[in-house]
């Protein structure tokens, strides 16, 4: 499968990444090669194989409903780039109109 510049634009937008035109061309090229490699799997007949839900053969790892201590708000906010009181302060949510 060929990854187009439009595909790169779309994925970059979803990931909030910005590339210049040269980088986009490079990305399209590299991503195409990766997808082509994975396409090798299409050569296998997987008709009888159910989709894998997890790579580890474990099931039902559960914990009891018990409250454990939370972080002190001071601690929780320590890495926050900005705060107001005990709130995380973030840039306004809507981009400019």
């Amino acid at each position: 499968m060929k990854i187009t510049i439009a595909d790169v634009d779309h994925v970059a937008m979803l990931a909030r990444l910005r590339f210049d035109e040269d980088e986009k061309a490079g990305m399209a090229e590299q991503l195409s090669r990766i997808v082509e490699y994975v396409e090798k799997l299409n050569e296998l007949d997987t008709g009888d194989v159910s989709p894998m839900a997890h790579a580890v053969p474990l099931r039902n790892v559960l914990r009891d409903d018990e409250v454990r201590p939370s972080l002190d708000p001071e601690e929780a906010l320590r890495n926050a780039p900005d705060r107001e009181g005990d709130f995380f302060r973030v840039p306004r949510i809507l981009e400019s109109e």
Partner: protein
Amino acid sequence: MPERAKVSTAWAAEAAGRPGPAQDGGTGAVACASEFEPVIGLEVHVELSTKSKLFCGCQAAFNAPPNSHTCPVCLGLPGVLPVLNRKAVEFGIKTALALNCEVASFSKFDRKNYFYPDLPKNYQISQYDLPLGTSGYVDVSVDGGMRRVRIKRVHLEEDAGKSVHESGTITGSSFSLEDYNRTGVPLLEIVSEPDLRSPEEAYAYLSMLRSILRYLDVSDCKMEEGSLRCDANISVRPKGSSVLGTPIELKNLNSFRAVEKALAYEFRRQAEILARGERITRETRHWDESRQVTVPMRRKEEADDYRYFPEPDLVPLEIEEAWVNEVRSTLPELPGVRRERFMRDYGLPAYDAAILTESKDLADYFEAAVAAYGGDAKAVSNWVMGELARLMNATGTDIRDVRVAPTALAAMLKMIDDGTISGKIAKTVFEEMFATGKEPRQVVAEKGLVQIVDEGELARIVDEVIAENRDVADEVRAGKDRAITFLVGQVMKKTRGRANPRAVNRLLRERLSSG
């Protein structure tokens, strides 16, 4: 799929004053609405009332100080692992069973990816292709009949945090404040098939769903606290058509009434557009409570693309039959079944049975009172739905906090039956019981409310009243029968309601016909 987080972004544009095409749904709509029918499906999110969050041990509390219930897991710090809360899964299975769903024998969690400040991990752990429950139904009584509303799916996911905006609206703010206490609280998403055919049916379905969830004790379902949220899908088609129209998604429905009103508005709006021969544009609209209209939400240019993929940090669930049966054995009698039983066993009208069984606590109260009373269940129903409900409403009291024990109500009803108090006085007695929690006998004794059963004492008062109202007494003697009502009233007043009106009537007649 939910996208609650994105809700707030777009509607704000409208709230800030951009006029939407909502104005087109005005007059003339009613005339053409009868040729069309709405097709409605609801997507409900309920917060499960577990003690801890879905994937970490932080307390799942409402109204705690900001960011006081967070940890590296729910803050999405690097290198942490979520561990699934068994209780939340049990609540999910319980709900799926109560909604007649098939419980998945194999279920897993998936990542739903999007950026929003209330979502610290930049993805929400949800369930995509293998939800806990599928293909269920709820029977809802509508307009005297029953409608079976199919449940498409029931799945578990984590809640997002809460954004507080500087100036109340998003657009007016230069920044937002985030509180992550709610992040990771377990949510159950319940999606119905588009089986509802009117806003009233949607309301009835929501009520039934809430009633069931409360019976199960899995959520307190408080819409005002956000522990129950509802989005709606509505399309409109000509009556009799089996083709589905273009669905519109409705958001910001903050009460059951809002759901009903927004759907009614949207039905009229779409019917009018279709009647003009125009097409409906697929979009998400926001209910504007203050203007009582729906307005289109401004969408970002990007299409929804959540890139779901299996959550690698959580292993799948294998839900064995034994576990399902264990949960099944904890199911209470559900409101629909209980309503039928109330009609059958107590001979109650459908209306009484529906109201009494809507809440488990109210139904328990009623049954305890009936058992203690041993008399006519309808009399108990009348008091519970009448005086008790009236006083509860007037004082904002929950049935669990009512100070009148069911046995006390039963004792009072017996006092009416044996003539100790009149039905009229009983209301006064009951008010006092409600306010103080006292037993009826004590209230009656303290307030001197015992009915006057002594004929001689009553006759004396009747004679007094006749003597004080000679003109009226003469009118009665002259055959003006209706005048006797006035005299009865005077006796009741003199006795402060403690006389039996029938006895008073008889005594008056005896005297005024022989005199």
